[in-house]
């Protein structure tokens, strides 16, 4: 068939190429060939859904009937699905969670259920909706620490320092702990004396042996972030410890990989991203490392990512702008397109990695570092 050339390897269609091909072929063919990826007819005994995938599908469908017995039960199941999404890096459980939510009449929702929905929105980067749900939770339960912490996280991602400080102050009540120390020093580190803030949190962590493991872990990762921003070699140790404590945590793995890339250590990136190709962020960072090392595995991973981003662009709403911009900038070397994506990312996310990416993309595209933000937001500095 005429279109099989573009279908080679079952990689789908390039939207940019196809209209042209289609127009060329239409008058010649009269009837245009089949469209879409290549279809294969497997043998009867060929495995088409692996054990892992089948387990994921059946586990999620088992959740449905029990979840609706009570709002408490629902909140618990939602938490499970959010956690599953976090550890597997798959957004599918979030979709199932939204499906579950829709089945419980809204007049039966408890603050806990709203908190879960806020978390789902947050993960999907629907920050306004997340904020709206958090406001509802905090109205009913003004001391809900989890809601304040979520609000703090969102405020930091959006670079809304006023809201972040307010939330951080709430976390210091009824008495300041390691958690509030972490957010306080993190905020301070964005001010005039970042080194002092880092030292204070470091000392605080050293003497807080009685704090819970989770609060200590939080402080550790905050320190890793602060040390990375300050360009301190200690960052390495913090990231390594953090990763050792929670090997399933994809966020810190990605942050560490990105730090290693910035340090010019791509070989180590290959080690910590090995086996994580399903995760966009880690796959992109791995592709960057492979590119820098001129590794023969590079073309394979790059074409896989090409296909993934092509599908994501088609879908539109869930395109990971940060990852795609990094891919364009550091793998494809297309600075203009990368800048466009970095700007799109900046629309919703303004944390440190987002800012760093925007500055780099703008510089590579030959723009002044401030151009992009001035253009969009009328701000004078990044």
């Amino acid at each position, binding site marked *: 068939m005429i279109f099989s050339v573009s279908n080679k390897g079952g990689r789908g269609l390039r939207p940019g190429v196809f209209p042209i091909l289609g127009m060329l072929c239409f008058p010649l063919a009269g009837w*245009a060939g089949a*469209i879409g990826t290549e279809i294969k007819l497997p043998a009867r005994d*060929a495995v088409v859904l692996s054990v892992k995938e*089948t387990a994921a599908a059946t586990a999620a469908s088992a959740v449905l009937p029990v979840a609706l017995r009570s709002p408490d039960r629902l909140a618990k199941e939602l938490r499970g699905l959010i956690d599953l999404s976090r550890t597997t890096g798959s957004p*599918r459980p979030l979709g199932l969670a939204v499906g579950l939510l829709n089945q419980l009449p809204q007049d039966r929702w408890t603050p806990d259920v709203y908190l879960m929905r806020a978390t789902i929105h947050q993960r999907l980067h629907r920050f306004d909706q997340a904020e709206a749900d958090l406001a509802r939770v905090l109205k009913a339960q003004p001391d809900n620490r989890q809601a304040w912490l979520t609000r703090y996280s969102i405020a930091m991602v959006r670079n809304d320092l006023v809201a972040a400080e307010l939330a951080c102050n709430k976390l210091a009540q009824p008495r300041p702990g390691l958690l509030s120390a972490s957010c306080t020093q993190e905020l301070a580190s964005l001010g005039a004396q970042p080194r002092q803030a880092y030292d204070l949190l470091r000392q605080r962590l050293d003497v807080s042996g009685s704090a819970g493991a989770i*609060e200590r872990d939080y402080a550790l990762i905050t320190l890793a972030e602060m040390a990375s921003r300050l360009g301190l070699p200690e960052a390495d140790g913090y990231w390594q410890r953090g990763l050792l404590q929670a090997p399933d945590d994809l966020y810190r793995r990605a942050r560490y990989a990105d730090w290693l890339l910035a340090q010019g250590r791509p070989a180590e990136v290959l080690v910590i991203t090995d086996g994580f190709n399903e*995760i*966009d962020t880690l796959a992109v960072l791995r592709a960057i490392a492979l590119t820098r090392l001129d590794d023969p595995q590079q073309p394979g991973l790059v074409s896989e990512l090409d296909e993934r981003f092509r599908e994501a662009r088609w879908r539109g709403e869930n395109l990971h702008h940060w990852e795609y911009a990094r891919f364009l900038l550091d793998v494809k070397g297309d600075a203009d397109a990368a800048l466009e994506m970095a700007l799109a990312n900046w629309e919703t996310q303004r944390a440190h990695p987002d800012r760093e990416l925007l500055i780099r993309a703008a510089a590579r595209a030959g723009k002044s570092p401030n151009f992009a933000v001035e253009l969009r937001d009328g701000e004078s500095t990044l």
Partner: protein
Amino acid sequence: MKSSIILVILSFVMAGAAHAHKASDSFLYWQPAFVEAPGRLDIALVDLARAVPLDGNGDGQVLWGEVVDRQASVRNYLASRLQVMSGDLECPLDLRLAGITRHSDGNYLAVEFRPDCLHSEVAPSQLKYNVFFDQDPLHRALVMTRIEGNDRLAVLSPDQRTLTFAEVPSVWQTAGDFIWEGMVHLWIGYDHMLFLLALLLPAAVRREKGHWVVEDRLGAAVKDVALIVTAFTAAHSVTLVIATLGVVRLPIAWVETFIALSIVAAAVNIIWPFLGHRRYLVGFGFGLIHGFGFASVLGDFLSDTSSRLVALASFNVGVELAQLAVVLAVVPVIFLLRNQWIYQRVVMPIGVAVVALTGTVWAWERVPL
């Protein structure tokens, strides 16, 4: 409090940029204009396994054979959730499991669908997609349609479940369009006008036993006209409907020829009333033929619409409205001029001659011999 602690980690982690895999998508490829080419829906097996249990032997994995064994359930599941519409009518779908295809996140089941829209003689205009939305509102259908060689990408979601290929006008729009078409057709299709004129002219001055007789009573003239127009309308409406619905089809060239001859006959009948004085019968008889003429014009327009009955009725209404306008314009004039010498001696004979001659020429041109 315990739950808060668990979540402390969650929200911290989520603030960052760790995304992965991808959300649930299906892929739909279709060329709606090509009846020969089936549409194709690729659904992720991992999504399908949630809706239709696929692991028949319970060994924790799914083999192709197990999918094939479950194809009735799969088709059943999809049949109620994927609809192809032709206007307001649903086209029955023939679903077939075509095999396995790969997208970026794994194996997908490729299902071919063939809509049977032939009953309405109209191309499919809409696709309604409802697969997986109940279990996963973040599910999306990524659609590629090829229309006239151009590929168009679209996304269907719970907020946008329908894809429209051809704009389907509203019923009122269709009605308005077809009323106008009906009116225009009567006015620019001179043959119907001339025939009507030939029937109307004797309403004021008619020929009886070799003499011109002037009708003095307005009431009688109006009654005469109303009767003729009603008979003509009733007749051509009947044949318009049965021809449009395909109950009876006549060769159009002969219909056109006969319409031309009907004009000649109606004109000659003014001078020599060989068809009798009950002109409403003449109107009715020839009206039957004229209806087939209207139907052939309407058929050309109908291929673009899905609301056939509305179109048919509106077209007819348009024809009647145009007819009424002609009657209202002509009858007062001939009634006012009826006593004038020039009308009786010049306008009538010349008018009759011109109408008869025109009809003859048309008949000659149209006869398919």
